[in-house]
């Protein structure tokens, strides 16, 4: 049947996008997997195939991306998440020149030229400071749902001062802030401020060129997006499903391969 798939194997989630040879989007899936492994990636792809009502044998070419891209055996080619996010972002918004991606355990800023090519990038991924995992841990410490953090932070009138972005130290810091009687909304707003300040330096290192798009799970947190918009003094666009951008880029690479093979 000649279908193509892009699979983004991240540190917390697997994402799959399925297209036909004409570039029509057939299905997409985000699966929380907890740990990178082939079984989880296959499960995500299986669920996507099921949603589209097609079989594994219908797949002509698969491109994998993300940290697990070379750890799985079913892909025909792997492409870095840098190139895939750029490709996915350019597909969704052709006028995007800056992509801010905050995933489970890393964050990256990618600069795109007018043709959608990567013009430069910056990554910070040796610890989980300021990433999805950071927010997950602190949501647990504050006993709030991760998905409620964005909404809660927006009602804060007095964000708390959170100085550390080390997940361990920040956890102790918010215990102290709670003990001092700071409302949860202020603590969460303070955490978002701290993440924003860290990202601000990374973005400026690469250079801010509008339009700016944000992707990754943390892009679903409106609190973080608003802080970044304020700190960078620029509007940020967030796609309907920000976690799928890397897999979307991967499927576009797969489509390119079936049309003009390089492997």
């Amino acid at each position, binding site marked *: 049947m000649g279908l193509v798939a892009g699979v983004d194997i991240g540190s917390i989630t697997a994402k799959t996008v399925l297209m036909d040879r004409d570039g029509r989007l057939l299905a997409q899936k985000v699966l929380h997997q907890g740990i990178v492994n082939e079984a989880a990636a296959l499960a995500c792809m299986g669920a996507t195939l099921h949603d589209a009502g097609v079989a594994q044998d219908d797949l002509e070419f698969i491109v994998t991306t993300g940290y697990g891209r070379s750890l799985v055996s079913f892909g025909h080619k792997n492409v*870095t998440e*840098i190139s895939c996010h750029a490709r996915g972002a350019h597909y969704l918004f052709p006028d995007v020149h800056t992509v801010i991606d905050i995933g489970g355990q890393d964050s990256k800023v990618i600069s795109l030229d007018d043709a*959608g090519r*990567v013009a*430069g990038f*910056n990554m910070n991924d040796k610890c989980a400071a300021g990433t999805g995992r950071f927010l997950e841990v602190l949501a647990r410490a504050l006993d709030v749902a991760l998905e409620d953090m964005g909404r809660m932070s927006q009602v804060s009138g007095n964000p708390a001062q959170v100085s550390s972005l080390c997940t361990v130290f920040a956890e102790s810091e918010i215990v102290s802030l709670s003990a001092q009687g700071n409302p949860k909304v202020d603590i969460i707003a303070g955490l978002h401020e701290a993440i924003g300040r860290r990202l601000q330096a990374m973005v400026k290192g690469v250079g801010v060129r509008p339009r700016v798009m944000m992707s990754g799970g943390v892009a679903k947190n409106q609190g973080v997006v608003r802080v970044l918009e304020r700190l960078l003094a620029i509007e940020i666009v967030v796609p309907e499903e920000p976690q799928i951008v890397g897999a979307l880029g991967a499927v576009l690479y797969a489509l390119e391969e079936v049309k003009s093979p390089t492997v």
Partner: protein
Amino acid sequence: MQQKRTNRMDSVALVGRAVDGFYADLRDAGERKDTVAFCDGFPLPFPLLRAMDVSYFYGDAYSALVAARHKEKPLQQVAEDRGFIVEVCSYTRNAMGCALLPEEQRAGGHPLWQIPHPSFVIVTDPGCSMLVNWGDAERRQFNVPMFVVQLPHFWDDGDEAEAMDFTVKQLRECVTFLEDMLHRPFNWDRLSEIIADTKVATTIRKEAMEMCKVAPSPATFFDWASALGGVNYLLGKPQCRELYQAIKDEVVQRVQKKEGAVIGEQYRLYWDGIMCWPKLGVLGDKFASLGACVVAGRYTHLGFYNLPEAMDPTKPLESLAANGMALHANHNLDWLVDNISNLCQEYKIDGLVCHAHRTCRPLAAPQLEIMDGVSRRLGIPAVFFEADMADETFYADAQVDTRVQALLEEIDARRKGR
């Protein structure tokens, strides 16, 4: 990662044997209770020491060597136990770990840990925030005299003649220091012979390096980093010339046969920063497996005795000063961007790889501006990865994979025009 595509130079293996011989001689010198000098920083004083037949321990090269041979961890632990925390220069930590090693651990340990104690310390500082403190720690540990040569920093266009006078004056004082330490007059005739020999050896090395401007490149940055052993350990000995001649002969053969150091060379890269010594083989294979040949680097091509044309046996101190002053670390951002850009053009570089070494801040500090300047001037992409020159705990393989692969994808995209 894909299949191994490294085509190693046989002659570079000779460096390892020469280095083993150097350390065996150093241990023998210790057993004979000969005078031993500890040297840190730029390898400027070696010809002076060789002229007086003084054995030396070169802290920087030693630290790189123990890291490359994976014998550094116990040394780092000993240093850390004495307060040299992990943020301190890993070269300093390795060398100080060796200096501080308890006698029972030294005697029963690896031969590389059995370094004799110094009679004095010489530091040649090209503007590093650590070196004088490192030398001072050795001075205090062994209760010996210390001499410091300060290489001038060309923070503006400056006066080269004045800088030359300043450097030569210090080298003269260093000669006096040696005479005081050794209680005998300096052997100027021997120094002139050493300078003449060094001129020949480093000319051969430079000619061999410049043959790598062809594609496929017959040797890699990793080969030239290993070959620094000749400069660090053999200057003034016939072996130095023989070593570089053997390397040059192999390079010539490869050029004639169009044989590359990377099988199927597709990309030619520039390396900024010190070598990541604990990962010398790993990184060589990693880049090669992707068809990438790291051809040239600041460390190897703008660093150590790369100015043989300035070597004049009738002016030995001026010859040394000129080579010390030519070190990249002594120069301002404009000089660095100009010279690195020229290097990249000569070696037909497709992309820049920047090793941001966590514990060498002085060299890492201008890297963002250097890469930005060269990248913009030449219109080629650049990538950073953070690791360290001699502490592998700062290295993360997956992160390096992503960055290097992304750089090559960027080069591909530019070639395809999309």
